């Protein structure tokens, strides 16, 4: 407090001295380029003024501002929404990793007793959660029950099915790479005729999701470019509308920084409000999808519920919107402001 007061007082007294005369003084100009201690305060003051001036301009033109903001919102909502969908799909499939299962088909010659010994041996391995032994008789029974070829099987003299061990690894060993290693190990056991990973399709799903993720990224980059152009064009039009004003400002000594500040802030506002719009659009869409998704997950006996945009995601959309708006405005300002010179 005290420091502030001492810093301010000389300036106050200085203004009091000059306050009596309203007419210009000979050979002196009181208006100079701001320097020294007051420079930083002046800098922030200028930004503060521009911030509210730009906000005033946005609010004075509600319809056209709203249209721009809506377009930006839709452009940002698309990648954000797809990201949410992808995240949900990943959430669902993550639960399926528990179901990783390796089927070991043993040699025909292996007897039931030997198969049981093998079950014990595999169960003892650290990465194994559970081993289920399906005897040829059980397998035949299941086959008869589900395949509808029951009568045909009567023709066979003996059971053609081998002993089968269903091996389920522990959760920590369920990642694709670990499972691959385990599969290799089991396949090399002498009594194993064939080892089959039942989750090949899961790997394919992951591959498809990787494509999806890349697709969302590409889309996001393209739409970010679109936002840049939208904001750039809006600011370009705004600059053209204020051509006379800019000319007058330049004539009475406004720097480029002073003139461009409100335009940069308009870009920032539009981008950020567009991001808020995007967030609302994503939330609304997810709300509309909520009912049908709930029904579907009920049909699958699942308690899955649609996740929405996480807080970090919201922040990313807001920051991205703001930055894109600012960058778009900056590009437009840099290109068009220099062209306007008083004549």
């Amino acid at each position: 407090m005290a420091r502030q007061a001492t810093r301010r007082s000389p300036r106050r007294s200085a203004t009091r001295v000059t306050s009596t005369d309203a007419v210009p003084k000979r050979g002196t100009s009181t208006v100079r380029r701001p320097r020294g201690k007051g420079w930083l305060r002046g800098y922030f003051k200028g930004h503060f003024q521009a911030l509210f001036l730009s906000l005033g301009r946005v609010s004075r033109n509600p319809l056209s501002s709203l249209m721009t903001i809506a377009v930006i919102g839709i452009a940002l909502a698309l990648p954000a929404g797809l990201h949410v969908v992808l995240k949900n799909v990943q959430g669902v499939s993550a639960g399926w990793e528990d179901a990783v299962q390796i089927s070991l088909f043993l040699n025909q010659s292996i007897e039931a007793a030997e198969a049981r010994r093998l079950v014990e041996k595999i169960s003892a391995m650290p990465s194994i959660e559970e081993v289920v032994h399906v005897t040829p008789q059980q397998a035949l029974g299941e086959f008869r029950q589900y395949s509808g070829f029951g009568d045909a099987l009567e023709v066979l003299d003996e059971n053609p099915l081998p002993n089968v061990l269903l091996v389920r690894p522990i959760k920590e060993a369920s990642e694709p790479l670990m499972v691959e290693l385990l599969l290799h190990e089991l396949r090399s056991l002498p009594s194993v005729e064939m080892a089959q990973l039942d989750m090949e399709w899961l790997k394919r799903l992951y591959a498809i999701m990787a494509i999806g993720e890349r697709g969302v990224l590409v889309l996001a980059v393209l739409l970010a470019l679109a936002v840049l152009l939208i904001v750039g064009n809006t600011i370009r039009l705004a600059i053209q509308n204020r051509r006379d004003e800019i000319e007058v400002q330049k004539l009475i000594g406004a720097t480029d920084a002073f003139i461009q500040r409100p335009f940069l802030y308009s870009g920032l506002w539009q981008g950020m409000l567009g991001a808020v719009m995007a967030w609302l659009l994503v939330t609304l869409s997810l709300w509309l999808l909520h009912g049908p998704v709930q029904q579907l997950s009920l049909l699958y006996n699942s308690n899955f519920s649609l996740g929405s945009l996480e807080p970090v995601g919201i922040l990313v959309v807001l920051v991205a919107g703001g930055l894109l708006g600012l960058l778009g405005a900056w590009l437009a300002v840099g290109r068009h402001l220099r062209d306007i010179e008083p004549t």
Partner: protein
Amino acid sequence: MIHFENVGKRYAEGGEALSGINLQLDAGEMAFLTGHSGAGKSTMLKLIGLIERASYGQVIINGKNFSKLGRRHIPYVRRDIGIIFQNHKLLNDRTVFDNVALPLVIAGQPHRDIQRRVHASLDKVGLLDKERMLPLSLSGGEQQRVGIARAVVNKPPLLVADEPTGNLDPALSAEIMNLFAEFNQVGVTVLIASHDIDLINRMDKRVLVLDKGRLIDGAGEQGEVLQ
């Protein structure tokens, strides 16, 4: 205050608007710039306001050599020159107060000072009661006075006016000219371009006469009056 040394201005379209101008206007002087249309009055004022640059020669205003001035420095130099335009160049969507305050806002003056100085400036031109009005609701003479208030609000040492009485009746014109004379009396250097010979003669000040881009009278001695 204003120093021209063998200054010329050629335009790309051809023709020399100004050629070989030598001129010395001291601080605290008041002078009129006259001549026929196309004689180069506007071009000369544009050189002083840094709106255009000389093709050759030296323009030195307030101790600053314009031919050596970078683009970055132009705004700061313009703040020391109050320019008054024939077509006022006011911002029509802002009030009289905001128009006059603009140079101070641009210079980053404290808010308290802005209000005080705008009021002082408007009081000087007799428009204190119209500060909340928009420029278009004022008469031509009043708009011109708003332009003058804006030009003097940051107390520049030099005032330059381009046909400030161009569209005004004789009584209003005389009023405006007296206003400039008052500023000159407190030490401001004033240069006014005008073709109103009667009015200029009545003011009894130094007169610079331009003809086809050449300064044919008033370049040297002070206090010379057009016959």
